[in-house]
């Protein structure tokens, strides 16, 4: 397993990409997909990337649903702000969030989530202190944003990538 398939996730992703590009699936393209999926990770081994360990697939699925919902909702929110449909005063501001998540893949996924939900912009992350600087379009005082990021995204991510 580890000898022939050092990165099983990469193998699956590459084979799937190949099949998607060469649809409809024929025996020939399936064989080529398998070849690409097996040979490229073997080359990748020379680069020695860190292996990804995904635990708790249930938590991952729940997180995906939460992120999908938040993405649609924040898209509508930001669209309303841009079109000027929202009444009342709106403030923007920077929020500093001390992250407990240190796993590089977890941080990467968190950056994708925060970018995928408009209204939050990842400005800077300090890997020494673990502090994340975020710009939010709809700033509410206090640590509402800190709690939101920590409860909704960081905690499940820490369960998935440990």
């Amino acid at each position: 397993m580890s000898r022939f398939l050092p990165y099983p996730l990469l193998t699956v992703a590459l084979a799937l990409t190949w099949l998607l590009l060469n649809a409809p699936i024929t025996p020939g393209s399936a064989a080529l997909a398998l070849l690409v999926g097996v040979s490229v990770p073997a080359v990748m081994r020379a680069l020695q990337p860190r292996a990804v360990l995904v635990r708790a697939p249930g938590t991952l699925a729940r997180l995906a649903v939460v992120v999908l919902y938040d993405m649609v909702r924040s898209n509508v929110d930001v669209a309303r702000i841009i079109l000027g449909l929202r009444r009342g005063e709106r403030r923007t501001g920077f929020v500093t969030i001390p992250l407990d998540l240190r796993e590089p893949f977890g941080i990467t996924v968190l950056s994708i989530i925060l970018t995928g939900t408009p209204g939050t912009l990842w400005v800077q992350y300090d890997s020494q202190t673990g502090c994340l600087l975020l710009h939010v379009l709809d700033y509410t005082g206090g640590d509402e944003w800190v709690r939101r990021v920590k409860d909704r995204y960081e905690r499940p991510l820490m369960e998935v990538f440990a």
Partner: protein
Amino acid sequence: MSGAELPLWAAWLVVALAVVGAAFSLTGALGLIRLRTFYERVHAPTLGATLGMALILISSMLLLSLLEGRLVLRDALIGVFLTVSTPVTLLLLARAAAHRDRHEGTPEAPPEI
């Protein structure tokens, strides 16, 4: 132009998805004009890069699948690529802007962390 063999409801569904997606993208571009500071403006194009892009790609996959009579999912690759590349772009841009603003000491510069 093809699509004569398509049922009417499918055509309306495809068009609705594409138009709503394009509307989100257009709103994002409008935000580029309407919002006042740079850090506010960076939020705007993500509308097109997330929901706008997703709706248009779903609409395209639906149309091509119906036309060719099989599942055509390769447009999803554009979506995957865009989803992983947009954070890198915006993150680098925001960092560069933060760096310049701090260096010049403009009032809207982000605080140090």
